[in-house]
């Protein structure tokens, strides 16, 4: 049997992306009695523990631009972002009725409060606010986080009715190490040959991992990498940009496509950050929770939802991303009313100014429909980069 083409792979991923009933995850659950599904929201949870419990971690990143929000708007004022309202819409319309638990990571006050709302709206579902340390000393934040994960492990053992062993956790860590390695390979491939690996395709391929078992996703990404390398796509005179600020509410697919159409090659981004949150492999021996904790404290990505204890280090992750990928500028795309991204933005922009890196900024919502202004803004930015670099 021949390997699938990029078109075939992307078509499948697009189908998963558009499926707001999560059919793939439902089928996985129905395949064997007793299977459980645990949903999680951005930005990070240790999926390894869910996997080791024999459960399917299911990424819930809002409803996108295809979901009509009817009920969800009744829960939120106009000045609150869209992801909580579309997530509630998914819940109250029964689209998540097969989900046995929901995790609300520590990312902002809106998602934090949503954890309490979920408890009230769906009292029969396990619901957990997943607190993470914002201090990074091993004996302080590390111990706190290890204990929090131990509590979560115990909760899952009760839900699943089976023990989560250290050996099982090591195996799960290994399979997620592999997932992260493969996705980083994909990102590297895009940075090297962005014309062969369009950002919208990368997004869809990575996003498929939110609803598929990780083993299946590993296979899928590898197939895409192989197929994309064989593609003969024309090189355009685009500017290479890093896209940042999209770590929670997801942009419409059209927004990502519009950036490329307007003359930008996206060579790095913070979309679906959980898939690359931990940098490097997590050790697969010793105490697995301690290892996950160490990875979180010392080898994880920077984002606005995290405290940066070192002033000198603030925003340097963006400068490094620009250098690593050979980017020529940064696009700040932030969700409207997103406290973490919008409060962080001026500080990051100051760092870029100091480093002489050009940038632009705009806001979006997951259901933004009008792409023309964004296309014009990004197009002008791409053109101006070309002009500057030629000067």
């Amino acid at each position, binding site marked *: 049997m021949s390997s699938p083409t990029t078109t075939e792979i992307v078509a499948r991923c697009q189908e998963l992306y558009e499926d707001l009933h999560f059919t793939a995850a439902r089928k996985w659950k129905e395949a064997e009695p007793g299977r459980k599904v645990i949903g999680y929201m951005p930005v990070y949870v240790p999926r390894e523990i869910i996997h080791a419990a024999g459960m399917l971690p299911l990424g819930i990143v809002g409803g996108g631009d295809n979901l009509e929000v009817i009920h969800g708007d009744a829960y939120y004022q106009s000045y609150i972002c869209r992801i909580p309202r579309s997530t509630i819409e998914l819940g109250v319309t029964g689209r998540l009725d097969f989900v046995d638990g929901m995790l609300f990571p520590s990312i902002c006050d809106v998602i934090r409060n*949503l954890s309490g*709302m979920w408890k009230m709206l769906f009292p029969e579902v396990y619901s957990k606010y997943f607190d993470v340390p914002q201090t990074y000393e091993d*004996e302080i934040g590390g111990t706190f986080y290890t*204990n929090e994960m131990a509590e979560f492990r115990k909760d899952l053992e009760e839900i699943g009715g089976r023990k989560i062993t250290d050996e099982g956790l090591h195996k799960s860590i290994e399979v997620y190490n592999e997932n992260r390695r493969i996705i980083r390979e994909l990102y590297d491939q895009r940075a090297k040959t962005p014309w062969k690996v369009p950002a919208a395709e990368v997004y869809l391929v990575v996003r498929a991992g939110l609803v598929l078992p990780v083993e299946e996703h590993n296979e899928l990404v590898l197939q895409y990498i192989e197929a994309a390398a064989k593609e003969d796509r024309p090189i355009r005179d685009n500017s290479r940009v890093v896209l940042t600020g999209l770590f929670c509410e997801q942009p419409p697919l059209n927004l990502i496509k519009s950036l490329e159409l307007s003359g930008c090659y996206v060579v790095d981004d913070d979309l679906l950050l959980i898939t690359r949150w931990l940098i490097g492999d997590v050790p697969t021996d010793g105490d697995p929770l301690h290892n996950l904790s160490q990875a979180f404290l010392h080898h994880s990505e920077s984002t606005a939802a995290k405290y*940066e204890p070192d*002033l000198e280090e603030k925003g340097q992750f963006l400068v490094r991303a620009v250098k690593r990928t050979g980017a020529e500028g940064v696009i700040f795309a932030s969700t409207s*009313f997103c406290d973490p991204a*919008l*409060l962080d933005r001026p500080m990051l922009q100051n760092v870029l100014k100091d480093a002489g890196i050009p940038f632009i900024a705009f806001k979006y919502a997951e259901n933004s429909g009008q792409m023309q202004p964004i296309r014009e803004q990004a197009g002008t930015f791409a053109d101006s980069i070309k002009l500057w670099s030629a000067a």
Partner: protein
Amino acid sequence: MRVTTSTAQTTDVIKDASMIKQKQMMAAHYDRLTSARENGDKVVSTFVPGNLNELLMCFDLVNNLPEVNAIQNGLRRKSGAFVMEAERAGHSEDVCTYVKSDIGMMAKGNIGPNGKELPAPDVLMLSYTGCFTFLKWFELLREQYKCETIFLQTPYMADGKITPNMIQYMVKQFKEDVIPKLERISGVKFDIDRLREYLRKSAKAEDDLVYILQSGKHVRSPIDAYFGGIYYIGPIFGAFRGTDDAIEYYQFLKNEVDQRIAAGLGPVTPDGPMGEEKYRLVVEGPPNYTNFRQFWKMFYDEGATVVASSYTKVGGTYDYGFRHDPDRPLETLAEYCLGVYTNRSLPMRIDMLVDYINEYQADGLLINSIKSCNSFSAGQLLMMREVEKRTGKPAAFIETDLVDPRYFSAANVKNRLESYFQMIEQKRSGKGVAA
């Protein structure tokens, strides 16, 4: 004792004697703050929820509260220009106006309410308690001041309980990070007995504060627990918890409240003693400060008294039994931070509001939803429906902002309030709640 004073606003305001005393305390504090450099004092900036005043006093640090500065600027009608100044400098129109008022104030010379320049802090004590914005706010200030930032994380009480892991985490932060850094920065060695003494004083003032807040249970409440409550919480939420000044202030206030109860009097408003108590309300959410007096007047003109509020619990939920405990000095600081209102889960907040409506014999719940504050605001519409369902009392929703005058629409707020009072009347007369 009542004194008539003249304010920046057009008409004379009748102030209760305790208000005068508090004003003097605040003025003295701001004078100490603005004279810190010449007096050789070191300055710490920190937040109200999760305020570690007793601990900071152990290091002879003068406490500067950017939230209170923003409130002062809101009350003095200066915050609007500061917010716009920050937006011109690149801050989003979508984010917290306390932050932007603070940043704008710095850009305009950092002048305090006493007309003198506030000193740059020697340290930022980032007590990350109940509000994500705090974390970013002090990263922004750190960028400006280039000073050391001490971080204290308070885990969120998501499951309605304080776990041993939470306490251990916080105590470790105190012992291994916060206190050693404060010692180094201040040059003062930590003395736990000094901390115990301050905590003892805190508990004493806290007893009186609870007595005052719970006097709202009297039918014909002697206090307004929202608008008046802002003043009542000032000393204990700010720079005075753990001081003799705070103890004296609350004793003074308690006596006044007792006198009002004995005389059958209601709250004191800026226009004098309040008339008939027609409506008893519980209010959720912070107030608007840019039009504070106008906002309050909409209530007392209609005979509406706020008998209990959640905002007066952002700096501590003392009425639920918490007292600073000198016998467990670090654990008690941790429990204090964990228990503040905005660090409580949504179900816990709903339980509190339901309790208030029942225990204070309120006619209903009013939510003042603040554009700036997602910590308070996200989920309030569900809270409103749940409280209505559980108490059978009508609830209403208005929207304003903390210190951004662009988001205070007096006509809209007044219309909503008038409709709400009609709704309460209908409910009382058994005609049901208007759709």
